[in-house]
């Protein structure tokens, strides 16, 4: 590459560095110093451990699903409903995430900024689970009774046997509900709830009524049988009614809750955790301060030991850091404690790339002029740098794909950091050194290293 182009590139890198630094300043800091903060420069996305908030974990009960239902689809539908509810709570950037797999599904909910887990649990859990069930055939009924025999006493079995009808789950659940409203029977003034299904729901309902003519269909809310009307004829058009012994208040509440999004599957709370905002806030500020002090110490050290080369490496590290932070903002990567850990290690490795090269430079410059010594120093440090960084990338890839949650965050920040560290250490530092070695500075061998 000709020198002219190197200088142009150098200018470009410096310009970009300035841009990235500006872009990566935390919002609060910018406000404090009074730098204008453009709207398009998003703030960092902080994880719950740094920001404070409520973290909930639920178990999703898929045992009630008919065997041929697509579990993943049902769980996804549940997630969507819960997300709708969570969004109504007015928290910023909530996370609703499905974990696990077949027959063992979990739902993780993170509500940053919220401080009352009980209120959150109530808000999320109060939605009724709406289900439509159909009669079992005689064979299925016998099957169930047989299975129960081992678990229940004879008397209990006798009692159940007397019940004329057993119900089994169908595909039709709250997930296919479009809306619910309270209406009144014009003759008795008894309130009832009229349901409207989505297009898909209407089809399922049509099928369901068609195959159950003159049989009962049971409507369950939260596992309680509300009513079990007998189907007179197949119903198309996607409308149904729930009649039951409601008071007006009860009916109103049920309709409201159904509208807010009936949960298609039951969920059980497994754990709840509150992270106080004080803990989060102070740890972010303190970690930031500590990080800056540590960074400053690294720069001082590099400049003391490697002099002018150390200064160039420090600028290259500023490029690396601000670029990385900008990427975190743009993707955006949620910053957590473990993410910061990954970030720190990548910083150490980025420094190492420079140290390795400069130590080589010390050997090379014994018998070469600085402008000539730079190329072989980089070439000779490369195999070690490559092996060290590639093995770390292997670890990152495996951690990212095998684990979940915060370990994934760790792997992501470390991986991105390693790639950028390689780039800045091998190419940006190299560019800086080539550019300045070609000036008169290249003649003073002593300023390039201790």
């Amino acid at each position, binding site marked *: 590459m000709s020198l002219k182009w190197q200088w142009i590139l150098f200018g470009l890198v410096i310009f970009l560095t300035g841009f990235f630094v500006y872009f990566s300043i935390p919002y609060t800091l910018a406000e404090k110093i009074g730098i204008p903060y453009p709207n398009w420069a998003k703030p960092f996305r902080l994880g719950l451990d740094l920001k404070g908030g409520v973290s909930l974990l639920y178990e999703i009960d898929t045992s009630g699903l008919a065997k041929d239902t697509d579990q993943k689809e049902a769980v996804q539908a549940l997630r969507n409903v819960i997300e709708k509810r969570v969004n109504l709570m007015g928290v910023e950037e909530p996370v609703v995430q499905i974990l696990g797999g077949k027959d063992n599904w979990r739902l993780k909910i993170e509500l940053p900024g919220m401080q009352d887990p009980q209120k959150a649990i109530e808000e999320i859990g109060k939605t009724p689970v709406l289900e439509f069930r159909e009669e079992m055939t005689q064979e299925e009924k016998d099957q169930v009774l047989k299975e129960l025999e081992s678990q229940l006493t004879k008397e209990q079995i006798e009692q159940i046997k007397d019940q004329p009808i057993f119900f089994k789950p169908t595909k039709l659940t709250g997930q296919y509900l479009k809306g619910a409203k309270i209406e009144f029977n014009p003759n008795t003034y008894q309130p009832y709830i009229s349901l409207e299904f989505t297009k898909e729901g209407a089809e399922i309902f049509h099928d369901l009524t068609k195959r159950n003519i003159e049989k009962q269909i049971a409507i369950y809310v939260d596992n309680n049988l509300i009513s079990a009307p007998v189907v007179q004829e197949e119903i198309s058009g996607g409308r149904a009614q729930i009649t039951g012994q409601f008071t007006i208040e009860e009916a109103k509440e049920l309709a409201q809750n159904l509208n807010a999004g009936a949960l298609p599957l039951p969920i059980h709370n497994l754990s709840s955790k509150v992270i106080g905002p004080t*803990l989060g806030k102070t740890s972010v500020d303190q970690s930031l301060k500590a990080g800056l*002090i*540590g960074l400053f110490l690294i720069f001082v050290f590099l400049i003391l030991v490697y002099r002018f080369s150390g200064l160039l490496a420090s600028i290259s590290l500023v490029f690396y850091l601000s670029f990385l932070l900008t990427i975190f903002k743009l993707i955006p990567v949620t910053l957590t404690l473990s993410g910061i850990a990954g970030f720190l290690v990548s910083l150490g490795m980025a420094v190492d790339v420079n140290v390795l090269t400069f130590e080589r430079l010390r050997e090379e410059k014994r018998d070469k002029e600085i402008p000539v010594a730079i190329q072989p120093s980089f070439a000779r440090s490369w195999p070690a740098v490559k*092996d*060290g960084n590639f093995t770390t990338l292997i670890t990152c890839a495996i*951690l990212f794909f095998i684990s979940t949650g915060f370990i994934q965050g760790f792997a992501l920040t*470390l991986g991105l950091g390693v790639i950028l560290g390689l780039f800045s250490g091998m190419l940006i530092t190299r560019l800086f050194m080539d550019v300045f070695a070609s000036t008169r500075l290249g003649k003073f061998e002593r300023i390039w290293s201790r």
Partner: protein
Amino acid sequence: MLNILKYSKFYLIIVGIGMIISLILLIIWGLPLNIEFKGGSQIEVQFDNEPDVEKIKEDIKKLNLGEVVVQKSEGNGVILKTKRIDETEHKKILETLGNPKEISFENIIPTIGKELKTKTIIATLISVILIGLYIFNTFKKSSFIIPSFHYSFAVVIAGIHDILMVCGIFAILGKFCGTEIGSPFIAAILTILGYSINDTIIVLDRVRENIKIGSHEDIEETLNVSLSQIIVRSIFTSLCVLFPLVAILIWGGESVFTFAFALIWGTIFGTSSSIFIAPSLLLEMNKRK
């Protein structure tokens, strides 16, 4: 040239003893896992004035919640650890304490932590195997004096040593200082493993280069020359890694203290194992040639 490997047998014996002690401590005491792994409830509150822990203990005892651990924390804070409690019990406890400011409340089942543990162990094992294979492959081209798998072996042993020693330290801390570790510790262990492997590879890379040049008398001299060339870099790099970690340890606040502490020990062990353990292993395995 520094004759670092003069005492290679001695290093290996010391290291072996250290690893065995660590392992024994881990078997007897185990790691001090927190409720994320064990399950249970934990409440942290902050009082306006200095709280009386003994009185709190007595008051809580009256609630009949089984064994409750009451500990002082930062400032006027108190941490209570119990079995898994429900919301009424939670409210009762807060009432008993006189409704202080609640900083955090955790109610956790142990399965999550267990899953995390298994997944991490599996991921770590796979990456260690793959890294071993990677080293085996890259060092194969210049393996005419030291077989390629010896490098893999040395890197992996050095990594295991570093993790084992840090875990041992935390077993002791848990026993005597009541330190507890949560999921960030897993991130710390992974970080240490990553750093250790990276550092050892860079040292061994120098050995490989010197073997290629081939101007030294025997393996011991080659290793010593390589170590003398690389030791300055190793110390400088570990210093640069330690700067931010020490800064975090001092100024980072309590929530990241344990984390930074683990990483600092990991960096120290990681750097020293690359200089003392891995080359000593290579030497002892290839001495007769």
